[in-house]
């Protein structure tokens, strides 16, 4: 079945290191996306026409363009045009954050407008200041609504890092291909075993996140 290849030499460690690269890039991008997305989402929910229009354009660009095209634009196009030297890793973090921020901002905006106006009013009627209303009443509710939605986005971002091998980053999928190539003679069936192992690794990376989200949902649902 080709599983034996995985345990040959340093193959397993190499695969894990590849997963590490993918996780590093995705988690840094996720962190940037959450922070920037919260900020932009709040701006969007303020209903300022200019900001709204700009965000609309941004969001549509991100939605229309495949992530791979964005990666190529930044890594090959942008560097050539400006003569700068952005590393592949930095390029992928830029692209993934660019994408994640747009989607996160849209989720945040949706959560903001789902909070009824009268929640603000009853806070005001109790004498809470604007800042107190956000900190104690609105944002905790936003976060609770946002978690399940953003988990979906985060796992999607992790999975999509399989594209970064196209700009030369050796992540888990690329390592897998290298292992298959190297063992083509001795283990012609390696492809199945190696890809099955990668499947499992992605699952192990995303599953705890999904468990954590379920735990939080349960805790907050009471």
């Amino acid at each position, binding site marked *: 079945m080709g599983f034996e290849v995985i345990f040959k030499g340093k193959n397993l460690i190499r695969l894990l290191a590849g997963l590490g690269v993918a996780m590093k890039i995705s988690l840094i991008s996720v962190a940037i996306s959450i922070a920037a997305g919260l900020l932009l989402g709040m701006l969007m929910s303020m209903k300022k026409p200019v900001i709204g229009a700009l965000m609309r354009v941004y969001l549509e660009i991100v939605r229309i363009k495949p992530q791979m095209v964005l990666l190529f634009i930044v890594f090959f196009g942008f560097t050539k045009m400006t003569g700068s030297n952005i590393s592949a890793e930095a390029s992928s973090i830029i692209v993934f954050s660019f994408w994640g921020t747009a989607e996160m901002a849209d989720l945040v905006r949706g959560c903001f407008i789902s909070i*009824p106006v009268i929640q603000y009013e009853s806070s005001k009627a*109790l*004498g*809470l*200041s604007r800042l107190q209303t956000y900190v*104690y009443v609105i944002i*905790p*509710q936003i976060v609770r609504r946002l978690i399940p939605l953003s988990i979906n986005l985060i796992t999607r971002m992790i999975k999509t890092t399989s594209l970064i091998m196209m700009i030369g980053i050796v992540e888990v999928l690329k390592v897998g291909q290298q292992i298959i190539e190297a063992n083509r003679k001795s283990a012609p069936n390696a492809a199945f075993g190696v890809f099955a192992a990668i499947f499992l690794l992605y699952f192990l990376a995303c599953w705890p996140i999904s468990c954590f989200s379920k735990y939080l949902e349960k805790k907050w649902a009471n």
Partner: protein
Amino acid sequence: MSEILKIEHLHKKFEDFEVLSDINLSIKKGETIVIVGPSGCGKSTLLRCINGLEDIDEGEVSLEGEAVNPAPKNAAGRRKIGMVFQSYELFPHKTILENVLLAPMKVQKRDRKEATEEALSLLDRVGLASRKDSYPRQLSGGQKQRVAIVRALMMHPEVLLFDEVTAALDPEMVREVLDVILDLAKQKRTMLIVTHEMSFAKAIADRVLFLDGGTIVEDSDPNAFFEAPKTERAKKFLQTFEFGS
């Protein structure tokens, strides 16, 4: 009794539509005032203008001689006016006790222990002390509304505003909420109540205001208003609550 709340020449417009025009009102400490009138007559807007949820276009609302709307920079005035809403508006992510304690602790910076004691005794008074650790969604509408009343009381308001607080409740829960308000009236709290419960209005009011078309059409004692309204408009309005006549 001394005057506590004064409204002078209040005008409020939404776009070009004048919702309230030239409202003048003087309320004495301890008075229970019931405001009735057809829907869209401006009852709720009047309450919202009193505690500053709506900006007013002309005139002034003052509490104990201090302007509250248009509001001076500090929001202190608003804290002295409590409001209970039709849809309760408890904070869904907080327990009953946390809901009731949030404003006293964050706005008034009160001591947790002292505030908790008061909260529990007030919750006990409305029969809900045992539910202090529940979340709003675990409570019935009537229970939530009683918690909302306690939450408003915790701020020690000088004036309490009730905006159709039983309108969203199932009929069998209306009574438990009205009983709480009746209890407050007995304690001589100053209250303005907007309601469609005419028998409740009759029982609780010291004064009834009949609002129609954005003006106070009648301002009289409840017996006079319900038995022999002075104006045709009030007569017509009251008839809509009677069947078979």
